[in-house]
């Protein structure tokens, strides 16, 4: 079907939806323009090519990506358990998952310290046994990112699972597929669009994560200083640099998301 033809068919979406959706888009576009209007475009290359920025960018990409993957590996099974298995305390676990979203980031970071820090519930015995210390290390950054980002994936995927017609899973079981195989080969592919949405949410949230990271993992250039942390520090002294570095963050996320293209978002 030709594109022109398709367009003709898809014509005239309802005005209400276009209006409301347009306002919705403006909510994001106008602040971006605001940011652009205050950006020192001339000095930009210089501002963003410093060691600090390069280090921070590298670390941010690594940790956000890793956090996305870990969120996927832990969050999808968790979402599945919440959606498909009845166990005592299920609704409490479901509610607790949203914890990191409502806690002020600094408190979230503090909670992580209380849990995985040197004197933390789990951190103390762990440290005693292995000498491993999570705060002030890159693993601390990843942990903070996972803590903050995973809820988005879990909630999104659970929503999708709740909306899935279970008869397809039954059909797969009737073909001899174990629950795990059903999960891998039927359930996951069928919720693929929501899975992608959840992953995007988690990754982007991890990329922008600030409060919990700085509180839990600290802020050391090259080790735990991610781009948002570097932006924050720059804000203290050099607003131009801060704005420039923020644009790097925006650019990274735009590039990644645009490179996924429509193919990634739509049904095959």
């Amino acid at each position, binding site marked *: 079907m030709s594109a022109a033809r398709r367009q003709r068919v898809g014509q005239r979406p309802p005005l209400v939806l276009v209006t409301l959706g347009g306002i919705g888009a403006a909510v994001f576009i106008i602040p971006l323009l605001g940011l652009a209007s205050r950006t020192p475009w001339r000095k930009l290359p210089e501002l963003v090519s410093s060691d600090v920025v390069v280090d921070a960018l590298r670390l941010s990409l690594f940790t956000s990506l890793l956090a996305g993957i870990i969120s996927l590996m832990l969050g999808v099974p968790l979402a599945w358990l919440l959606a498909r298995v009845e166990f005592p305390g299920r609704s409490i676990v479901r509610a607790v998952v949203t914890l990191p979203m409502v806690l002020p980031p600094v408190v979230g970071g*503090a909670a992580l310290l209380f849990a995985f820090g040197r004197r933390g519930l789990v951190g103390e015995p762990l440290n005693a046994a292995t000498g491993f210390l999570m705060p002030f290390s890159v693993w601390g950054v990843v942990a903070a990112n996972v803590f903050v980002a995973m809820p988005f994936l879990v909630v999104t995927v659970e929503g999708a699972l709740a909306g899935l017609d279970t008869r397809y899973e039954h059909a797969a079981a009737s073909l001899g597929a174990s629950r795990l195989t059903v999960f891998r080969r039927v359930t996951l592919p069928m919720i693929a669009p929501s899975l992608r949405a959840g992953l995007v949410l988690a990754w982007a949230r991890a990329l922008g994560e600030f409060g919990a990271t700085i*509180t839990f993992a600290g*802020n*050391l250039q090259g080790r*735990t200083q991610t781009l948002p942390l570097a932006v924050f520090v720059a804000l*203290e*002294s050099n607003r131009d640099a801060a704005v420039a570095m923020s644009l790097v963050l925006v650019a990274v996320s735009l590039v990644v998301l645009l490179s996924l293209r429509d193919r990634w978002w739509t049904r095959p």
Partner: protein
Amino acid sequence: GDEEGSASTGTTAQAADDTVDGPVLVFAAASLTDAFGEMKTSFEADNPGAEVQLNFAGSSALREQILEGAPADVFASANGSNMDAVVEADQVSGKPDAFVTNSLQIAVPPKNPGKVKGLADFANEELLIGLCAEAVPCGDFGREALANADVKASVDTNEPDVRALLTKVGADELDAGIVYVTDVKAAGDDVLGIDIPKADNVVATYPIAALAEAPNPDGAAAFTKFVLSEQGQAILADFGFGAP
């Protein structure tokens, strides 16, 4: 609610016992939270018609808000550079005044597990050491103190503000950090303060200013004046601040 006629504050600020009224919006650095809370109570007692509204945030966030046209009357910054930016933008009425000083102290967890005695211990790589980040007031001053003591610190984290640093020290996650005396005092039993010798210590000066576009210029002037007054200075001293 003010009475007709009594509000003869048309021209310039008059004698100190002239009262002002209306809302006075004060943008104050987060480290002034408790002291300015007290300040508000006293000022409002003296000026029954006035209502002080306090907006606490990091100095840089406040600076940003003022530069973007926030309807603030007074800006009390925790360092000079954020105030300078506001001055440069012609947003200050007159000139800023230094209203307090603050000196540094080493904060350690209550039981001092790192057995920290002084700045020299900051070079110990075994210990977990935190400072405030560079450009953050306490960060710059802390580094200056270390330089004075000729210590090359093995830093594990550069915290965004004093609060974050104190939280970690208090939680026993860091063995030591350099903060303001007032912060140690405010933290109560959570942390232990260790003095830094006068020779190495650095004194930070906090500036305050009424703002050029203050919606309530009289209130702004009066509040600034109150902070600089004996009564105001006494309140600040109670919270551990030094005189300018």
